[in-house]
């Protein structure tokens, strides 16, 4: 009797499962690049500025910070010291079409960047930035890298012509100036961001970035002609699709695009914590200039 009822319950459960698989195609579905399904025509709640409410803490879960393109798992910088600690996970390319369209000489520079990614030499001001992944040195990562660092960021959207994006990594911040005419007065590490709304998408135009930032730990790079256009589109209460079009005629043969979902951090009372990494880098950068004590 017990067994039959259990089988009956399982049968019912099975039908429910079958129905839930069958139902979604009946609603309009939108396929995201990750292959998941979001209801199309999701209408996000409005913030006080009348536009979609992007307030909250967001984080990417792609492994693009290691490498924008397809990558296998890899050992960390010093496996002989740290074993599996610091090793890199595998990941699929977030680049539309798979590959970054480098010009031939630029590809050589990317390879050189990668070979020198752990090299640091700040003894001469003129070559201060010549080698080494700026992330390792705790330099602000620029855009779009800040978006897919393995750290959360907080979007603060109020009223008035400014939206703040605050990143946990090295407490980097950037102010998105809405409907703004003034161009970047100088270059900056996080760039000069001007935003506007395109229906329910926040479009951010980023110029004036310091040429020294990298896109990832694989040495992908750009020049000071970099122009990034981002698109943030809420697709559910918990997901936002992120797209960035990257243009730099000095380095790439054509503009190219990356995209991935951003996830809302849902822990109760979640907040950005501090990752002030400057003290973690001082021995690396300045240790060689220490006064040597006589033996």
């Amino acid at each position, binding site marked *: 009797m017990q067994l039959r009822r259990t089988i009956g319950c399982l049968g019912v459960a099975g039908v429910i499962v079958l129905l839930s698989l069958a139902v979604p195609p009946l609603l309009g579905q939108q396929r995201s690049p990750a292959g998941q399904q979001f209801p199309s025509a999701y209408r996000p709640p409005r913030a*006080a500025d009348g536009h979609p409410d992007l307030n909250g803490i967001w984080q990417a879960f792609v492994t693009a910070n290691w490498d924008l393109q397809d990558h296998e798992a890899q050992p960390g910088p010093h496996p002989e010291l740290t074993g599996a600690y610091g090793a890199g996970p595998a990941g699929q390319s977030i680049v539309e079409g798979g590959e970054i369209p480098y010009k031939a000489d630029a590809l050589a520079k990317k390879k050189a960047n990668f070979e020198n990614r752990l090299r640091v030499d700040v003894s001469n001001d003129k070559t*201060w930035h010549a080698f080494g992944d700026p992330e390792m040195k705790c330099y602000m990562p620029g855009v779009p890298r800040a978006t897919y660092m393995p750290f959360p960021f907080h979007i*603060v959207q109020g009223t*008035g012509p400014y939206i*703040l994006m605050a990143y946990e990594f090295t407490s980097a*911040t950037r102010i998105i100036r809405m409907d703004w005419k003034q161009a970047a007065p100088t270059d900056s590490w996080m760039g000069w961001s001007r935003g506007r709304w395109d229906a329910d998408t926040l479009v951010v135009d980023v110029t004036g970035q310091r040429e020294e930032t990298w896109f990832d730990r694989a040495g992908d790079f750009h020049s000071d002609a970099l122009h990034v256009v981002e698109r943030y589109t809420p697709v559910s209460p918990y997901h936002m699709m992120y797209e960035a079009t990257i243009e730099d005629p000095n380095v790439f043969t054509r503009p190219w695009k990356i995209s991935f979902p951003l996830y809302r951090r849902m822990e109760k009372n979640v907040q950005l914590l501090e990752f*002030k990494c400057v003290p973690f880098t001082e021995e690396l950068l300045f240790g060689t200039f220490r*006064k040597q004590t006589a033996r």
Partner: protein
Amino acid sequence: MRNRVLASIGVLVAVVAAGLVVPAAGQAPKKYTAPKTPWGDPDLQGVWNDATSTPLQRPGNVGDRGVLNDEEAEEFQKSLEHDLTRDRRDGGNAADVNRAYNEHWMDARRLKITADRRTSLIVDPVDGRIPPLVAPSPERRRAQAARADGAARFAAGLPADFTDMSWPVRCVVRTDVPPYLPTIYNNNFQIFQSPGYVTIAPEMIHSARIIPVDGRPHLNKDLRQWLGDTRGHWEGSTLVVETRNFKSEEGVLFQGANPATFTITERFTRVASDAINYEFTLADPITWTKPWTALIPWNKVDPGEQMFEYACHEDNFDMVHFLTGARLREKNGETAGQRPARPGEER
């Protein structure tokens, strides 16, 4: 005369304590109602600047004047401007080199006294001075001496290693550690608001102090941060902000206060369309004999003036200059505090 001055100081302190408008001398306080955000919080949004020449502590030669009249204020401001301007070249090279650059590289607002014409930013104690220091324990004294040794090596241009430079010079923290105090430039703070939060972004160094105002608890006490952990709540139109959980590194907090025993309460009140009153109370029973409070007006500067990125560590070439310069001079025979004797010089 003295009683009138004391009475006016008493009124001033009471008015400040109530979080009301600080009246300019001779005027009755105007009732100002701060606008509200669409979700009902008082609106503090904008870019604000806190530069002023009014000193933190009452200077020694203004007697017990707490607030000045028109003529006195003009004299006070002129005298401070003369002291502070970087355009003066007098006093010999030793004084001149430390002025560093011309005045136009500095924040012009730092040559103006506060509109309410006080002689100090400190409003409590009524003498406008930081309370006497508590005698440090032998352990604290040793730690302070070690930091002082490092600072002396740095001042002599002979730092032993990067730890001899201060946290601000190392670009770890600068004016972003509360309490916010005016400095020579980049005295800007941008306030952003969103439902449940007030966010203060200081210019120097970049960071965002995202303050929940929804009543959630602080982080547990073992989760410590350079800028501490902050929670806010509204008392009428005043944002009251409490910060705890400062990291244990000494030398970060004001006057070397101890992170474990230091407490700070800050209050932000919009008192005019272009002004916020920023008030802070500091306490640390092992540093100061009693708590003390200062009031600093913030002036709205946007849209005419904007905040700009203050990257610091990224291009902090001077860290290398200090250290390589020291190694070179040591090679040439210099030791901390002493340069090598010149030929024929008696020592």
